[in-house]
């Protein structure tokens, strides 16, 4: 009896190795690993052979070589004698510049339109709906072409520039000209004051929260903070004799002298990105507000909260919990979409590094790898911040 049991065990384990989930899972993973390694080896091998056939070397030495081409719009010192690494940095900074300004403007426009779509006013709600449905369903690249080739490139020539604020802001087919602010040395005190007020505000907010938790007394933080941000630097400004001298653009014989020239490529890219992303942000905002249960509003009302408290303490915190994750992915989308700059010639990283620098140096593998790493870093950085935020606001279930 005992023997037959043992035999049974043996036969079962002998036949059922293939049915053993643990064995199958390990075997499958080893198979996948081997497959991937072979595939990777095949690709690397092919690439090396191909590169050798084309007499190309690999390595990152080219980053130190002089690039020899000019870039129309840079945030740091750059000229023909700068290296490929400078091109890389210029590209990243230009991408970040358009992304940061774009994110700020798209958030403002998107929140406005999202709230407008929920408005009680029929006309406003309809206008917002039409905006969202039209903009969302047209490719961004097409919109960029429109802003750049159909709008900005058909602006008048330099001598017929459109003047916005008399003698200070001009628009023509070479871009937008605005005055250049030149603060004098004393202005540094105003900047210090602004930073100090913001840091002070942070501590004030903490103190106000702790006091409210202990005593129940509330402190009017927002009005006090806004007032001090405006008033304290203004007083310093007056006392320190700080001045901002505006350097106005002046029409010369062929072009403007002085002021800041914002190239049409930047304006078109910013316009396109902001208008396109705002439509998506608006939908996110609308969904977030609608996600807050009506019961929450009613509960807040029955607690006797006044309207502003109901919004600030009950509705907005809950809506933000729904809004923020998709909002972040819209920010990331905007940053990634800024790579379409290559189509209209704004010198972002894809345009100057993955385009011009790649074609000149011929280092396809290295350049593409570096460019992808930039975006990967940005994206991972955002995800990390997002996860921290999410953990803070996430619903604590009991």
């Amino acid at each position, binding site marked *: 009896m005992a023997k037959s049991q043992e035999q049974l065990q043996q036969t079962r384990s002998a036949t059922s190795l293939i049915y053993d989930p643990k064995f199958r899972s390990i075997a499958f993973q080893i198979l996948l690993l081997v497959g*991937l390694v072979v595939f990777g080896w095949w*690709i690397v091998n*092919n690439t090396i052979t191909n590169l050798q056939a084309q007499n190309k070397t690999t390595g990152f030495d080219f980053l130190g070589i002089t690039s020899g081409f000019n870039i129309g719009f840079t945030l740091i010192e750059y000229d023909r004698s700068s290296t490929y690494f400078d091109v890389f940095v210029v590209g990243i900074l230009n991408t970040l510049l358009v992304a940061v300004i774009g994110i700020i403007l798209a958030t403002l426009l998107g929140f406005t339109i999202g709230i407008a779509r929920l408005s*009680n006013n029929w006309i406003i709600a309809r206008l917002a709906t039409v905006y969202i449905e039209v903009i969302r369903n*047209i490719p961004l690249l097409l919109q960029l*072409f*429109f802003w750049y080739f159909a709008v900005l490139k058909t602006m008048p020539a330099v001598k017929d520039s459109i003047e916005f604020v008399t003698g200070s802001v001009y628009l023509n087919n070479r871009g937008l000209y605005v005055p250049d602010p030149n603060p004098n040395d004393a202005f540094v005190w105003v900047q210090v004051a602004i930073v100090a007020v913001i840091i002070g505000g942070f501590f004030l907010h903490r103190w106000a929260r702790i006091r409210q938790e202990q005593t129940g007394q509330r402190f009017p933080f927002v009005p006090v903070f806004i007032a001090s941000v405006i008033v304290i630097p203004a007083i310093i400004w007056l006392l320190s004799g700080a001045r901002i001298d505006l350097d106005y653009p002046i029409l010369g014989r062929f072009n403007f002298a002085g002021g800041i020239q914002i190239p049409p490529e930047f304006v078109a890219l910013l316009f396109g990105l902001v208008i396109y992303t705002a439509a998506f942000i608006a939908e996110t905002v609308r969904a977030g507000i609608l996600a807050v249960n009506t019961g929450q509003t009613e509960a807040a009302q029955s607690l006797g909260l006044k309207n502003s408290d109901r919004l600030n303490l009950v509705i907005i915190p809950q809506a933000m919990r729904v809004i923020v994750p998709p909002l972040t992915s819209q920010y990331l989308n905007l940053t990634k979409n800024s790579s379409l700059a290559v189509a209209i010639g704004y010198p972002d990283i894809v345009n100057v590094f993955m385009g011009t620098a790649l074609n000149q140096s011929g280092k396809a*593998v290295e350049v593409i790898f570096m460019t*992808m790493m930039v975006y990967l870093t940005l994206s991972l950085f955002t995800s990390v911040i997002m996860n921290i935020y999410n953990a803070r606001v996430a619903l604590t279930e009991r």
Partner: protein
Amino acid sequence: MTDTSFAYVRDEMLDEQPAPATSTGVIGWMKANLFSDIPNTIMTIVGVVFLYWFIPPIFNFLVTHAVFPWSVENTIDACRTEEAGACWIYVVDRFNFFIYGFYPAEEYWRVNICFLLGAVTLVPLLWPDLPYKGLSAIGFFVVLPVATFFLLNGGGFTGLAEVPTEKWGGLTITLIIATVGIVASLPIGIVLALGRRSHMPFVKYVCIAFIELWRAVPLITVLFMASIMLPLFLPEGTSIDKLLRALVGVSLFSAAYMAEVVRGGLQALPKGQYEAADALGLNYFKSMYLIILPQALKHSIPGIVNNFISLFKDTSLVSIVGLFDLLNTVQATTAQVEWKSPHQATTGYLFAAAMFWIFCFGMSRYSMYMERRLDTGHKE
């Protein structure tokens, strides 16, 4: 007692009175939706002023001052006048180029047959009440791509003149890339999503790495990579078609996004569904195919269609790597000298925008319809 009547007691009911005129009909509606209080009234005025500023000029540009083929003056000179609006005759003249690209004119019928075949196989698939879903799925996912390839490419056993893919273009190539992207990305995405939810750590991390890598980079870099690096990756001497490179790039890119949507659907399923499938003794594939995926995919329909829409819009990016899709054909003609006129580019872009808009808006409406139809009330 009952017949006792008092003068002050009404013994017959009054007829029902209509609601006051101020709360029904147009006036009531306007009072509720446009002028309910002072801020609302101000917003209405702002809205009306806005419409008054924008609608007439847009209408004039598109219709009143536009040059149509049936206008009295329908030559290019009419487009070049000071007050001329949209130059529609340019779009009409170049229409074939926008649709077929450089495809030879005498072979247009082949493209038309493909369009027809696509419509014939797609409609029964999308129309929920029609039977034989499996048959139409085979038609759309297997017969259509094969037939389209041989019909458009020609050569070989087909006996048709060979038309290399460099000559394909316009809306044709936009639809080809979108369809291939959709057909390829959904199954790859499902596999990746299942892999990401797998209990096998290695499989899981490979899938996570793949998905996150593709999702982190813009499509442009993927297309650049596909067009520059793909030839390097393959054995020496293999030449790979430009269109195929773009197709590979678009499909893999879109598959990563699809995987995340499907994963959302999988996570939305209660654990009990997995346990029930196990309790029935179904193996992994059967439980996925019969129990889990039908429910998970139903949950993720809105997200899947959203991905289709962005994929359709993203096809316009292939113009940057040198393919002549709808947007690129339009862009290429905006500089043509024979149609040089102030609003040539704007008119072309408006046409392209309208084409893209029709497809994308159609898809989003269809997804809303399906969502309502499939909503069996399990959500709440």
